[in-house]
Every structure is written in C-alpha cells, then in structure tokens.
C-alpha cells in the first residue's frame, strides 16, 4: 500500500497537517520559556547580527531612496504650494479691491454726513460703469437711473483718494444730464459745456467755474478787486438752482490778472480725481429744481452705458 505514490502523498500530507497542528497547540500550551519560544528567540539572536550588518550596508541606499522620495514629495508639495499661492494671490487682490471699495464707500458715507447738503436730502450711491471715450466730452455713466429716483440736473458728488493740496478728495462731480430706467449720464464739471456757480470760501468772491479747454478748470467772472490766493477753497455758491451751496469744488492753484480782462483768471484743481472715479453719490434734494421737459434727454440705446475697464 505504501508503494502507491498517491497513498504516500496523502499520508505525508496528513502527517504534515498533524505536525503543524501539534506545533500550534504546543506553542500555545507551553510557557514563554518553552522550546518553541526558545527556538524563536534563538533564531532571532542569530538573525540580529545579520540584520544589523545588512542595515548598515543598505543604509546608504535607503538614504538615497528617502532623498529621492523627499525630493519628489518636495517637488509635488512645491507645485501644490505654487497653486495655493496663486489662489491666495488672487484672493488677496480681491480682498484689496473690496477693501478699497469699502474705503471709497465709507468716504462717500462720511461725505453725506457733512453739513453741506440741504436737510432731508437723500443720496443714491452708484457705480461708474462707463466713461466718455474722448476728451471732447467729460461724462460718466452710472448704474442707477430713474428707477432709483434719479432725475435730470441732480447734483452728483464723489470721493476719491486725497490728492496733493486737496482736503480729502471729496467734492463735486457734476450733474445728471441723461437718465434711463437703470442708468444715468453724469456731466462732469470738467466737461467743456459745464458751468458751476461757485465762490471762494475765504473771500466769498463769486464766479463761475468753467472749462475753457480740456484739462483746465477755471473760475471766471471774479472781479479783479477781489482778494484771492492760492490754496483757497472753491465751493458751490448755490446760485443756478442746480447745486446746493457749499459743495467743495476744488482748490485755487494760480491766480492771474490781465490788463485787458476785467476778471481774474483763477486756475483751480478739483477735489475729485476724475481719472480714478469709481463710485459717485447722486444728491436728491428735497426741492429738486424742475427740469425743462423740452430739455429732457432720454438715453437712446446708443447712449446706454458701455462698461470700460
């Protein structure tokens, strides 16, 4: 029977199974000082020097592997950080933009608290969404219109960063000259067709702020015997029924006189920096002057604001 290979194979297999189970049972039944446990400890004792030597031998390779792994990880981390940095930069730009906008709006809110405007005045804050494409006209489009209570000839003020001699950057911007439901056109005081009745705050000398040529703001019609000096403040006089009295317009820069001219030539610089104007505030006075219906200008599609950068 034992000569049959199948029987031998099965017997051997059975014997090995029994042996392994006996070993397993003996291992769990014997104390920690038993033979099998001792065999493990002894083997470990033989292997430990081998492992120690091998550890030292392969240490440089392991270091090299770790170095390469760290390098790859650092590279990957660098890419992640670069991506994160770009995202944060974008976020910082957004936050700075929001901060500046908040600052400007705060300036506008401070401006409306000034005791300049007639009691009961209401204010509509609007965003500048378009500008005149040429210097022949100086106007801006804003994103508020008749639906927000805007009408023709309402004064518009603004607040920008203070520039040089200016007090605060807060001052007169212009007036509403065109209005549609949700947009309006504002003629700036730097427009060649603009004229603002004004006075010198210190001397109370009256005149009219006009634009003789693009880029120049001049207070005209001031008698030569009036005392006017540089750095004096020009504000609206309240004449003309468009602008309330006392809105800051600008600062006197130079004062000139000509023999052939009965009026002084007073160059002024506006408080508002129109180049960076982004928000304005339309003043809705309780007694808004009645606009001449024949002069009412309704914005046509061509007049609709075109957003500019």
């Amino acid at each position, binding site marked *: 029977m034992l000569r049959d290979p199948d029987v031998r194979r099965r017997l051997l297999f059975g014997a090995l199974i029994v042996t392994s189970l006996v070993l*397993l049972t003996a291992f769990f039944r014997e104390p920690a000082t038993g033979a099998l446990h001792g065999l493990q400890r002894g083997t470990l004792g033989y292997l430990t020097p081998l492992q120690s030597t091998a550890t030292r031998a392969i240490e440089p390779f392991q270091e090299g592997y770790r170095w390469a792994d760290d390098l790859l990880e650092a590279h990957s981390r660098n890419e992640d950080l670069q991506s994160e940095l770009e995202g944060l930069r974008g976020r910082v730009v957004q936050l700075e933009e929001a901060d500046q906008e908040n600052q400007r709006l705060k300036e506008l809110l401070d401006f409306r608290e000034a005791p300049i405007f007639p009691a009961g005045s209401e204010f509509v804050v609007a965003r500048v969404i378009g500008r005149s494409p040429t210097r022949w006209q100086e106007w801006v489009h804003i994103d508020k219109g008749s639906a927000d209570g805007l009408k023709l000839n309402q004064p518009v003020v603004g607040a920008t960063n203070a520039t040089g001699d200016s007090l605060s950057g807060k001052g007169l911007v212009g007036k509403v000259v065109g209005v549609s439901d949700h947009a309006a056109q504002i003629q700036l005081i730097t427009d060649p067709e603009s004229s603002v009745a004004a006075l010198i705050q210190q001397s109370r000398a009256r005149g009219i702020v006009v634009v003789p040529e693009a880029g120049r703001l001049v207070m005209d019609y001031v008698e030569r015997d009036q005392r006017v000096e540089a750095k004096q403040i020009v504000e609206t006089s309240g004449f003309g029924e468009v602008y309330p009295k006392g809105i800051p317009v600008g600062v006197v820069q130079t004062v000139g006189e000509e023999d052939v001219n009965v009026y002084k030539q007073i160059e002024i610089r506006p408080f508002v920096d129109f180049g960076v104007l982004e928000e304005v505030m339309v003043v809705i006075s309780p007694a808004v002057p009645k606009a001449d219906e024949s002069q009412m200008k309704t914005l046509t599609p061509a007049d609709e604001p075109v957003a500019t950068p």
Partner: protein
Amino acid sequence: MTSALRIPDGVRLGGMLLVAVAVQAVVTSRVLVLGVSADLFLVLAVLVALGRGSTKGALFGFGAGLLADIIYLEPVGLRTFIYLMLGYGVGRYSEILGVASAWTVVLLTAVSAFSAELVYGLFQVLAGQPGSFWAMLQQQVLPAALLDALVAAPLYLGLVRLGMLDPPGGAGPSFK
C-alpha cells in the same frame, strides 16, 4: 568522461529556503509597498509547488511556513499549516492542469497570498486581536496579495532563467 555534479533536490530546495530567509529578513521585510512587505516564503512555496507538484510543494510549504513563524515571532505552526495547505493545493493544481503561462503563476500567487492572508486574519480575529477585519482586508490582505503577485513574476522568470524551473507551457512543471 566527466559527470556533472548533481545536487540532491532536497539540498537545492533547502538552500533556496535559507537564501529566502536571509533575503526576507534583511531586504524584503524592509521594503514597504502599499504599506506591506512581500512574503518570499509564501511566493517560493507557490513557485516550488508549481514546479515540483503537491508532495514537495507541501514539504516546502511546511518548511517555509515554519521558518516564517520562527522569524516573525508568530505562533509556531500557524503559517506552517497555512503554507502547507497552499503548497499542497497549488501542487495538485499544477499536477492536474499544468502551468499554461507566466500569468498563471502571477494569478495563482495572488490567489494564494489572498487566501493565506485571509486565513491568517481570521485566526487573528478569532484569537481576539483588536482591529476591524474589514479594515485589515483593505490595508493588509489585498495589498499583500497584489505585492506578492508582483514579486512572483520576476522571481519566477529569474528561476526559469537560472534553469531551476521549466518555462511556462513547457514539458511539465518540474525543476530541472
């Protein structure tokens, strides 16, 4: 006339096992892939069983498992039993169906490693070892099966190149 020095088969297998002990203890156990290290004892037991059949496969599995138990400081007899069963089962498979290709080796090693790790895990759970069996299935059993199968491929090809194993689809699953 010279006759080639013929080394007894048992000596060759024993030598292979000792080399496996050294490599496993010194190198393989230090290289972690997917959080686990390859088990050369198991892989060699499968390869020997494929090449030598069920009897020698069972003997080699018994010896490899016993050495693994001793080296890993685990309950002596546990891996002995598991690898013995694997060696016998894989050997019977090769005796009946043969080794069609190297992919058969890889697949059989993966299945064997999965089964071995599964039985070992179940024993640990039954022995009251803390930890989730399903977590171990994901963290140990599946990665170990995958890694052992990956290790089996080059090892098998290396043994074929050394002339210790017939190439797949050859005359038979026997070592030269």
